[in-house]
């Protein structure tokens, strides 16, 4: 078969298809490359920091090279001490030695002092034997542990930050062991983040299901009105809603004052409702509720009321009809809402930061802490990658169940 211009139809169709594909890709390309460079590249770049260990081999190149052949018994040979002295001296002049000090101090408290103290005295050590001179400058150089630590950090890449992120560490000979109990913090925080997100998701179902059902079964002119009550908070700034909850919940706030006025509580025994776990749970449930109601509503609207009537006329009572006939049909909406709320909840930062106090903060808050306060950026990156992995897995499930194309907004 041939097309009008004489080319075989197969070729002609293939050409048209190719042109179609190119046109489609051409339309997508600007955004695709924009997202790639403004978003994907930064995140990949950040993720690489979580395994980055270039500081030690970068600033102490001779030492790390010399340590490669050391068997880890006793003290390394004189040549290694000489290499270290040369490296520290060069690092002091380039003013990069402090980076090594900071890096080692993450592993063993006090190593900063060892390195900086040695660096201050290094200029006075002009010739060998370097072994005695360095041990004289700081007795830590006489300890096998110190050298084992340096040897362990000789690789430009490390999984140490991921271990730290789950409350583990390498011991001096490179075995994976648990952190001492008083330094265990991240696993608990991950568990708390998951647990609180789960609780908040549960609460949004509990509150969202009845009102979505009510709106789906009322005549449209009433349900449209009620929908505004859902959409208005949805469109209102997150900070406005968080502010509102602080105002409502603080000890001189609206809820406490109301309870005192009713006589439910004594004026001097106002319960603490904000700057703790309760505050985070209440405020986040409120903020995420619309994300549960909207998918539920859109699914419930498609369920014909005749199903329930049929079930009842076949002899089921109200409860049985609801549980056996209605609820199974809403499960798609429940699943979509749950995953959406859960994904949003585990990454929340602003609301827990403002209303969470010490007991109501989540993993995001600790990432921000390591970014802004402690400056342990690699640990922040490791925690971030773990969080990102969790979210990506959940998104994958969401996409399988609901399909991102079917996501409803407003």
């Amino acid at each position, binding site marked *: 078969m041939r097309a009008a211009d004489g080319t075989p139809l197969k070729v002609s169709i293939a050409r048209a*298809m190719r042109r*179609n*594909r190119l*046109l*489609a*890709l*051409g*339309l*997508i390309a600007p*955004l*695709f490359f*924009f*997202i790639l460079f*403004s*978003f994907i590249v*930064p995140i990949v770049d*950040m993720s690489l920091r979580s395994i980055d260990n270039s500081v030690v081999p970068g600033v102490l190149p001779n030492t790390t090279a010399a340590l490669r052949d050391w068997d880890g018994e006793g003290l390394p040979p004189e040549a290694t001490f000489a290499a270290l002295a040369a490296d520290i001296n060069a690092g002091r002049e380039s003013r990069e030695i402090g980076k090594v000090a900071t890096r080692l101090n993450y592993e063993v408290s006090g190593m900063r002092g060892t390195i900086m103290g040695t660096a201050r005295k290094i200029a006075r050590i002009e010739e060998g034997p370097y072994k005695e001179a360095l041990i004289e400058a700081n007795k830590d150089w006489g300890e096998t542990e110190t050298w084992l630590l340096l040897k362990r950090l000789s690789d430009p890449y490390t999984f140490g930050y991921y271990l730290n992120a789950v409350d583990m560490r390498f011991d001096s000979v490179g075995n994976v062991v648990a952190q001492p109990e008083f330094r265990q913090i991240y696993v608990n925080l991950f568990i708390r983040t998951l647990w609180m997100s789960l609780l908040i998701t549960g609460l949004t179902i509990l*509150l969202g299901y*009845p*009102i979505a059902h*009510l709106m789906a079964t*009322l005549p449209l002119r009433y349900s449209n009105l*009620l929908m505004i*009550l*859902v959409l*208005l*908070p949805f*469109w*209102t*700034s*997150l*900070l*406005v809603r968080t*502010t*509102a909850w*602080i*105002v409502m919940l*603080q000890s*001189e*706030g*609206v809820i406490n*004052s109301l309870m005192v006025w009713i006589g439910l509580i004594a004026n001097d025994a106002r319960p603490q409702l904000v700057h703790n776990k309760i505050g985070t749970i209440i405020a986040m449930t409120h903020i995420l*509720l619309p994300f549960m109601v909207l998918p539920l509503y859109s699914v419930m609207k498609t369920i014909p009321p005749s199903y329930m009537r049929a079930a009842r006329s076949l002899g089921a009572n109200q409860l049985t009809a609801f549980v056996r006939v209605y609820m199974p049909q809403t499960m798609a909406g429940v699943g979509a809402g749950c995953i959406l709320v859960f*994904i949003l909840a585990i990454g929340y*930062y*602003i609301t827990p930061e*403002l209303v969470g106090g010490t007991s109501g903060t989540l993993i995001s808050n600790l*990432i921000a802490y390591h*970014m802004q306060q402690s400056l342990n950026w690699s640990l*922040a*990156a490791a925690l*971030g990658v773990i*969080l*990102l992995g969790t979210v*990506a897995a959940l998104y994958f499930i969401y*996409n399988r169940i609901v399909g*991102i*194309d079917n996501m409803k*907004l*407003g």
Partner: protein
Amino acid sequence: MALPSYAGPVERIWYYSYRVACGAIFVFLIAPILVVIPLSFNSVPFFTFTPEMLSFDPAGYSLRWYRDFLNNPQWIHSLQNSFIIAIASTILSTTLGTLAALGLSRPYTPYKSVIMGILISPMIVPLIISATGMFFFYTSIGLAQTHLGIILAHTALGTPFVVITVTATLVGFDQSLIRAAQNLGAAPTTVFFRVIMPLILPGVISGGLFAFITSFDEVVVVLFLADFDQRTIPLQMFSGLREQISPTILAVATLLVLISVLLLTTLELLRRRSERLRGLSPQ
């Protein structure tokens, strides 16, 4: 779902308690917003209703926190920044997002789900991670602490909403309309502006509104990328709230509620128009 006349007493009780529970949930949804608005007119710096307010004594109300807001150059500067950044990033993300959605909705687009996944990612990745990544990368190319940097960052965060809403509009789009227009001799630009655009406009506008509110409301990325010059309203509120909650913040919050009401109304009108166009008018 009116109560049928044959309902027994148990069903009656159940019916009414269900209604009451739903009422309580709606109160929970709306109360915080409703409480903030009157308190922003409080004449004294307290965060609860004073006896004067409850008895509707005019002396209990005042506009002093709004005056505070208007007379504070920091707040005004933040307001300007918020609008500049939100409008610029809305224009960018609407343009890029609409084009991409058109591409994604054509038949035979290869690797559709992978591309979609990447384009949607800014909406899925927790903000703290996006902000951290952008902080390092934008600092390294000199875009941190500039308006342009924040505009680009917000554009990235806003595009998924445009892509999703415009793609949704295009689901019902009849591709043969394009072929018909082309057959009748229309140039590609004419086809776009005279045939495609009018049909997808509601989707584009509501996507644009989402992009606008995303930028206007965003604080985590701004927290990492902005210094004093790029302060936006949400950042100003955030740092204010971390220190102490002041009544001026309530006044700002009320103004922001007003903006959301405006956006919501626009969106609702658009939805009705598009339903009318598609012959799906309510009732």
